């Protein structure tokens, strides 16, 4: 069996497919990549299916050794990539010789990079998915983050040409993104003045930001109810606890909770949030559910068109 060996995992490296679906009835969360778009491109550049298992690297500092020839691609945050010590570009695939080291340095911009390998990492799914959720001890190799010495099995692949995503199609990760909000849930319990406060001020990412959720700091929001009977929480939901400081709930969130919610961050904007580090600022703007839906369809068409524009490197 071909393997890629973990020399150093860095800050946080997790085996990840597109996420776990249909398991909320057991209390299992979805997991999956915080930047679903970059994850898609990492797999696409090595000609994998969109749900193949790749590595989500948070912040950086990861080092691997390929024990057989493999083709890899790195996308997402600007983490300097080195193969055998030589700098290499991201947003393209590279054929890596057996015995080579692959190093992802600390991010210069952004927070999450994705490293995919042609054929995907060959990991047994748990509850229909390989997504690692450390809090649940589910997915990945044994429910944990990657650690030094882990051997990640890779299916042998016939070599193919390397390819790159044209530079004009690379996503941009703004430093101060405006996150669009689909109002819903208990929005009626936030007065017009409170909503105006929310949409007209910047919020800063606190130190309490992880794959469960990002706790923000800014003008406190008041809601005319203190708590609600616990209910299902969707991806991106913006929960407002008693201190009025919003929390955006992400991929590893608890599936139910009892704090009022003003709505949810539009899924297409969650990658922008996932690419920010504590201390960054964001602001919010409302978008209708219909406009958001139209934009999702348009984004999918654009992405499909982009997959036809990959440049072959030989």
């Amino acid at each position: 069996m071909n393997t890629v060996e973990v020399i150093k995992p860095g800050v946080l490296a997790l085996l990840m497919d597109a996420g776990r679906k249909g398991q909320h009835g057991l209390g299992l969360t979805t997991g999956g990549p915080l930047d679903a778009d970059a994850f898609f491109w990492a797999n696409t550049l090595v000609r994998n299916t969109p749900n193949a298992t790749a590595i989500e690297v948070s912040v950086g500092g990861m080092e691997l050794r390929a024990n057989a020839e493999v083709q890899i691609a790195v996308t997402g945050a600007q983490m300097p990539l080195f193969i055998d010590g030589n700098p290499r570009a991201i947003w393209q695939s590279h054929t890596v010789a057996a015995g080579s080291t692959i190093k992802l340095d600390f991010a210069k911009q952004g927070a999450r990079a994705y490293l995919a390998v042609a054929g995907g990492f060959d990991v047994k799914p748990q509850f229909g998915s390989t997504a690692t959720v450390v809090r649940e001890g589910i997915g990945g190799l044994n429910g944990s983050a990657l650690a030094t010495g882990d051997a990640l099995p890779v299916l042998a692949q016939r070599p193919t040409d390397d390819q790159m995503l044209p530079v004009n199609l690379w996503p941009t990760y703004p430093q101060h993104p405006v996150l669009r909000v689909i109002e819903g849930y208990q929005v009626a319990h936030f007065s017009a003045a409170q909503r105006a406060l929310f949409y007209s001020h910047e919020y800063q990412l606190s130190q309490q930001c992880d794959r469960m959720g990002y706790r923000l700091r800014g003008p406190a929001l008041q809601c005319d109810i203190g708590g609600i009977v616990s209910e299902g929480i969707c991806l991106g939901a913006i929960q407002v606890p008693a201190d009025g400081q919003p929390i955006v709930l992400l991929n590893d969130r608890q599936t139910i909770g009892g704090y009022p919610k003003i709505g949810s961050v539009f899924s297409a904007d969650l990658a922008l949030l996932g690419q920010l580090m504590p201390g960054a600022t964001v602001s919010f703007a409302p978008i209708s559910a219909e406009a958001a839906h139209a934009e999702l369809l348009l984004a999918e068409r654009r992405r499909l068109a982009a997959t036809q524009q990959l440049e072959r490197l030989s």
Partner: protein
Amino acid sequence: MPDMRIETAGSNALIVYFGAPDAGIDDTAAAQVAACADALRAQNPRWLEDLVASYGSLLVVYDPLLVDPLTVRACVRNCALVDASHHQEGQLIRLPVYYHPEVGPDLADVAKRANMSVEQVVSIHHDTIYRVYAIGFAPGFAYLGQVDERIATPRLATPRTKVPKGAVAIADRQTAVYPAASPGGWNLIGRCPTPMFDPKADPCMPVQSGDRVQFYPITRDEFIAAGGSL
């Protein structure tokens, strides 16, 4: 027609609420949630990704590339209108509990607060038949209600950093068995040797949302023989 409303939740989810607003925990609403979830599962549309049933609400998660929000809303509305009065009740699951201060450090406080003996608290706890209103917080964590008002006890002011696996606990009018060691602020009154979540077992949980649960007391020896650890 059931008392219900549908709200947007996000770009891939909506939530349906049953029962009058502020009605609190309500068995009629819980039965409607279960009936609506069953109706959706029976239709099993391609776009349906996940469901979260909890007390009086049902979160419906869909794939927005396969369907538009208005179609989901119409489908959910139809499923929400099914008659829940004949809805099949869930199974009755019996779970053993070793009730003792050794494994229930809050048992004495619950009794003191209720102004009754520890034995009375224990018998009220296992005489009640509970409904599984929701599963969440952690894999396999089932929210059971309603705890008899006489022994309802608010959460601890300071949550424990570690509650052991199998701990049986009360918070207000809810009770639960901790499926794994975790932090927690509920009042601990005993311990259950039955695993509440085992990823290798099939089924991996002894209960499902909508089931009913009744506890029965066991001795320390029976607890250990059943695989419980102190």
